[in-house]
């Protein structure tokens, strides 16, 4: 095995080992201090709870994933569009920024209560809450990306005769990708919290948040932890998907050349005659 591959597998192995260690310590603590299951169940009890209650947990998890995914997508889309609009117009930026900050300063729980009144108990209020949590970091980061573009790069494009649209398309928008993904990674983990908050304030249809509350009221701590484990899993998988997408979308940050797609392989130029327009006179 080469060193690079060794390091690669270590990168995957290490977090797995540490996770196992956390479960190990957890189990040990429960045994050594003889902790009652309703205070802290052993990991085995949590896993067996997931196994026996899977029929309930699985649809609940899908429900929460649905809220998470749709809310995330809506929040990112709204945030991105808003940031681009604000980036194009200084007046819009000045006017909207205080409103944006206000929208985040109001406790999300308070908004949640109002949303139930306005939107009922269905999927919609949950999506709105997740979207509300997601869109703020997206707006702030994308706007930063848009405004921090090198002024000289824009001057150069302008000197080349480019119009505002082409400058946006080729220079300003690509510059937002890196900050956008920083926001998305944060948002991927916040979104789970958003989904649970949404379920808690409008809980007729079940999700993992609802399941968690039910188990809590029955003092079934193993059930509570089962929900917590699955919620964390959703957050982790969401984060990993975003990080993977980041690798694909911003290859210049980690690679010397773009990933070569199979259908792009033939450049078919090397060895061909140099076009007359650039062929040198001398040398």
């Amino acid at each position, binding site marked *: 095995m080469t060193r690079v591959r060794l390091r690669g597998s270590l990168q995957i192995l290490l977090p797995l080992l540490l996770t196992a260690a956390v479960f190990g310590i957890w189990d040990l603590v429960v045994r050594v201090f003889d902790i009652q299951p309703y205070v802290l169940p052993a990991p085995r009890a949590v896993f067996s709870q997931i196994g026996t209650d899977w029929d309930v947990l699985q649809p609940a998890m899908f429900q929460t994933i649905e809220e998470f995914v749709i809310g995330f997508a809506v929040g990112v889309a709204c945030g991105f569009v808003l940031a681009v609009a604000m980036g194009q117009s200084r007046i819009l930026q000045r006017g909207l920024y205080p409103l944006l900050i206000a929208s985040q300063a109001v406790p999300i729980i308070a908004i949640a209560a109002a949303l139930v009144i306005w939107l009922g108990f269905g999927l919609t209020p949950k999506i709105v809450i997740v979207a509300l949590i997601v869109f703020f970091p997206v707006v702030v980061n994308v706007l930063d990306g848009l405004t921090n573009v*090198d002024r*000289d*790069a824009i*001057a*150069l*494009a*302008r*000197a*080349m*005769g*480019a119009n505002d649209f*082409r*400058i946006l398309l*080729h*220079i300003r928008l*690509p510059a937002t*990708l890196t900050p956008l993904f920083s926001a998305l990674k944060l948002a991927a983990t916040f979104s789970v919290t958003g989904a649970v908050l949404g379920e808690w304030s409008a809980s007729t249809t079940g999700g993992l948040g609802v399941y968690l509350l039910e188990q809590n009221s029955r003092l079934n701590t193993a059930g509570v932890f089962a929900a917590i484990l699955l919620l964390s899993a959703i957050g982790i998988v969401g984060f990993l998907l975003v990080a993977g997408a980041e690798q694909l979308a*911003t*290859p*210049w940050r980690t*690679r*010397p*050349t*773009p990933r070569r797609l199979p259908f792009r392989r033939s*450049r078919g*130029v*090397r060895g*061909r005659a*140099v*076009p007359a*327009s*650039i062929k*040198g*006179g*001398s*040398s």
Partner: protein
Amino acid sequence: MKLHIENVRHSFEGTPALAPTTLDVEEGAFVSIVGPSGCGKSTLFNIISGLIRPTAGRVLLDGRNVTGTTGHVGYMLQKDLLLPWRTVTENIVLGAALHGRVSRRDREEAIALAERYGLAGFVDHFPHALSGGMRQRVALMRTLAFHKDVMLLDEPFGALDSQTRLRMQQWLLDVWADHGRTILFITHDVDEAIFLSDRVHVMSARPGHIRASFEIELDRPRGFELLTSDAFTELKKEILNLIYSETLKQLEREGEAA
């Protein structure tokens, strides 16, 4: 006359940056502009490129009035300004991309340019994988591929170490000989100006204007041995004296203001 700059002057919010300046550049010439820092050299370039509309005066390109309009000349700065998300080839064709579509021919031409000028193995690399000298070469290829007869180079090698700089100067002369473009070159390095140019214009202290012009009648092609020749040293002495007196003036003026 390829480029005719007629009584161009400019003020930023009432502060004069460029005194009335007239400058003629012949087709295919290599012309340098040197002068104390802050004398308005870059302002002059921004006016020629159309980024700034001058307070007064006209810029004529091939007899056509292009004052305050962009897209007529190639422009290159000290910063390479390569877009990090574009490969070498994609950066070279930026001019075409900014005007709509990049054709297959544009791409082929970019690759041919890169291969001709020593970046054959790097056409698909992102800029971060290149050295400073290579990046600056790509920036010049981007300017070449924009297909404008006049190229403005504003201290393009100012950020490079002296060895790389010497090689780049030699290379620029090769490129110029190959393509026969008209080059306007800003530098504060008098050696560089003399080594490269047909003519060197010295600008005065702020607000700048052309203080004196020197014909550089040294044979081409020019090699590094030229840098230590008597003719070269003589010219350099003359130009440096002039710049030095202008810098003193500037310092005195700043002293009075303080």
